[in-house]
């Protein structure tokens, strides 16, 4: 049974993994249309979390966002590189060296892409009001994870390069932070409001699922990446079973507590401590 969880465990140790670049057919769909950055905060936002406020701030990413959007369609030819950013900047009429806005070239490009995807995910979660939907938490997690993984589908051929860039030591800290934010957002919008150890286990599980999904997509040969979506569904089912098992464990804990208390009373009765205490009160 442990063997089924080994791939998941291996992923924890191999965070943004390295895979060989495999030639794949180009996927047609382009990324999001050019949105303005001045997205006003959702009026019914219940939480005042830091990331929600960041989403609503408009000015700072203007030029950066324009260059980013212009460079995205060129990723297929030029990869996640400085050259791609240069070409993107040129195509919207800025000077070539304005790629310098992205400090570390390709790495910053991928970093910004991830940040943008996370922002899109938060927007989707709020617009579709996933939090208030009737389904259970794991179904919502599944839904949000699929949405997020689908955002990298258009760039799948070059995705191994992106993953390698994020796995480099000097950008690994940023990668961890992005992954943490993604896991936190997914759990929060799926309705998790726990404030104890399960906070950590849930986010770890979601982070692991995301990485597994990403790795699976990158080497998936099936049509429409069906194998990966099926694998994701199976992992969610596994989590459901683990949850049920955990629930049954805590129920048994109650029984164990009762047994402990009654055996203590029995011992006190047998040794006469019970009546001694009652008489001496």
């Amino acid at each position, binding site marked *: 049974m442990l063997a089924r969880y080994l791939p998941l465990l291996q992923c924890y140790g191999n965070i943004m993994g390295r895979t060989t670049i495999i030639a794949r057919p180009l996927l047609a769909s382009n990324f999001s249309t050019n949105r303005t950055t001045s997205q006003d905060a959702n009026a019914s936002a219940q939480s005042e*979390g830091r990331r929600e406020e960041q989403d609503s701030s408009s000015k700072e990413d203007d030029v950066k966002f324009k260059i980013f959007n212009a460079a995205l369609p060129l990723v297929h030819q030029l990869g996640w590189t400085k050259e791609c950013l240069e070409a993107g900047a040129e195509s919207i009429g800025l000077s070539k060296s*304005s790629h310098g806005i992205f400090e570390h070239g390709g790495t910053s490009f991928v970093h910004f892409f991830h940040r943008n995807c996370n922002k899109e995910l938060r927007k989707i979660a709020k617009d579709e009001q996933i939090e208030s939907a009737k389904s259970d938490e794991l179904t919502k997690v599944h839904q949000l994870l699929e949405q997020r993984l689908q955002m990298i589908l258009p760039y799948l051929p070059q995705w191994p390069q992106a993953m390698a860039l994020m796995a480099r030591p000097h950008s690994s800290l940023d990668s961890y932070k992005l992954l943490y934010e993604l896991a936190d957002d997914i759990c929060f919008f799926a309705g998790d409001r726990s404030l104890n150890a399960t906070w950590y286990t849930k986010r770890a599980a979601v982070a692991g699922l995301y990485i597994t999904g990403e790795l699976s997509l990158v080497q998936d040969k099936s049509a429409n990446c069906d194998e990966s979506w099926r694998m994701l569904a199976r992992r969610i089912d596994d989590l459901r079973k683990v949850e049920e098992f955990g629930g049954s464990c805590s129920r048994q804990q109650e029984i164990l507590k009762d047994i402990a208390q009654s055996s203590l009373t029995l011992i006190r009765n047998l040794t006469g401590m019970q009546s001694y205490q009652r008489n001496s009160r």
Partner: protein
Amino acid sequence: MCYEQAQLKFVHYGCVRTCVEGGSFQHETMSLRLSPALRHLRANKFACNNCLRKKHTKISDEVHGMLRVDHAGEFGANRIYAGQMAVLAGRSKSAALIQHMWDQEKEHKKIFDDLMVKHRVRPTALMPFWHIAGFLLGAGSAVLGEKSAMACTVAVEASIVEHYNDQLRKLANDNPEKHAEIMAAIKKCRDEEQEHHDTGLDKGAEQAFLYKAMTAVIKVGCKAAIALSTKV
């Protein structure tokens, strides 16, 4: 020069000439190096997620830490009273009083639960540890006797009141209006913890065996716990 103009000048002039307000073109790395004036802007506007967050966060990392430790503290207090009740229930005159104090702690925890969810603060990773340690402290002090249980209460509440007062001072120094809600919550909890402290003294805590030593040890433990839970 306004920020947008600075941006445009930076990207437009950068590669051909050195713009006084913009920066210089670095031939070795084929990239732009901002002049000190714009570097200040860049640090706040162009920079990575981290810098943006620090500038624009609703409440700062420090206040996050405060909420985290307060939540952990109320959770610990709950567990201490649970431990005391587990030993003293039905066997002591003060059982009803301890139950009442426990109920008030449950309310405090609820207040901080809501604040934590509202600001999406990460709870402390040591929760399982406080779950056990709090119960053991409560049960251990209660086993030594009712007055020892009161002494434990007095020591813990004294640490907590001092800690809350520190937090209130920090928040008031920073920005009382912005932190009004959090300050109100801490004030309410602090006042009730002070009540518990005084109740404990009334019920003869100081007559407990080794009162001074016990309270000293518990206060040191509380200080360590507070320091840990702020960060971890």
